[in-house]
């Protein structure tokens, strides 16, 4: 029996699970709460975001989280009985994650 090519999608899903669980809450608190409450100066934070490493971090966070999310959505839809459309579901799910990642890369590069 042929080995599956699923690792192509599972690797970013797995990486996205760790990455988003570890960093997403912190990023949400920093950008959504701490800046609004005035605990962190927005201008200083913007300076930090301009650093190449932060740009890379933001790209990875957005892209991997997207791949994680669409992988889950794909399996939920298939398990809900849409297995006959598994192919098109995969194309739509991973396609949107790829488009989202391209947009994230443009955003990270042009900040």
């Amino acid at each position, binding site marked *: *029996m042929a080995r*599956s090519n699923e*690792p192509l999608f599972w690797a970013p899903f797995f990486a996205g699970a760790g990455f988003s669980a570890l960093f997403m809450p912190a990023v949400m608190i920093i950008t959504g709460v701490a800046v609004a409450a005035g605990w962190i100066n927005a201008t200083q934070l913007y300076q930090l975001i301009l650093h190449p490493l932060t740009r890379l971090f933001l790209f990875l966070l957005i892209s991997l989280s997207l791949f994680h999310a669409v992988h889950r959505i794909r399996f939920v839809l298939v398990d809900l009985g849409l297995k006959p459309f598994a192919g098109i579901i995969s194309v739509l799910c991973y396609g949107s994650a790829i488009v989202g990642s391209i947009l994230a890369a443009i955003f990270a590069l042009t900040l």
Partner: protein
Amino acid sequence: MPEKSITLEVFRYLPEQSDEPKYQKYDVPYREDWVVLDALNYIKDHIDGSLSYRWSCRMGVCGSCGMMVNGEPRLTCAAFLRDFYPQPIRVEPLTNFPVIRDLIINLEDFLHKLKEVKAWLIPKQEKPVSEGEYLQSPKELATYKQFSMCINCMLCYAACPVYGLEPKFLGPAAIALGQRYNLDSRDGGKEERTDIIASSEGIWECTFIGECSRVCPKHVDPAAAIQRAKVQSTQEWWMSLLLPKGAK
């Protein structure tokens, strides 16, 4: 004082009498130290000899008395009446399997999968008996021991929603047992097993719901075995893609 009793609602399917299954109620004496299997044996011996079910050891070793007890896959030899009393207990055959008769399910599919996954030791190098045992350190034993505790009771298959939707799925116990031998230092059959374990009907059907590990009476944790196999298989897939052919 009248003797305490408890009601069992038992799934009955007698194909020679009717195509439709039915539930039959039996009142059995309530004893604090009785398990559901004791109650079934009481029914068989004293009330209705036509009731059919599998059982053997009565001590959680043989794995043959797995049934749905109030909708939950359980070993009936380990499901105490006192945990349900005074409510009635519904006993049904394990879900996700075809029923042959009453509480007896058809094991064919599972046995076929065990064979497919080659759940036995394939020695790296066959050696004559005169050369002695295949030795192993306690540390090497510890890497697979947990997965070797599986008693093939199939509760994990009854609990697995993925297996319910996709019967081709290799399933929790077969994958855990495949991993049990893959992780064994004396074994050399990993390549053969990986062809089936890493196929689309192997580990990749699993969506990590984790019910298999929750219901496992021997704490094998098949979900962990599957996740480990996924990580391993993903590493190998990317390595084979990134490294030049022949390099490993």
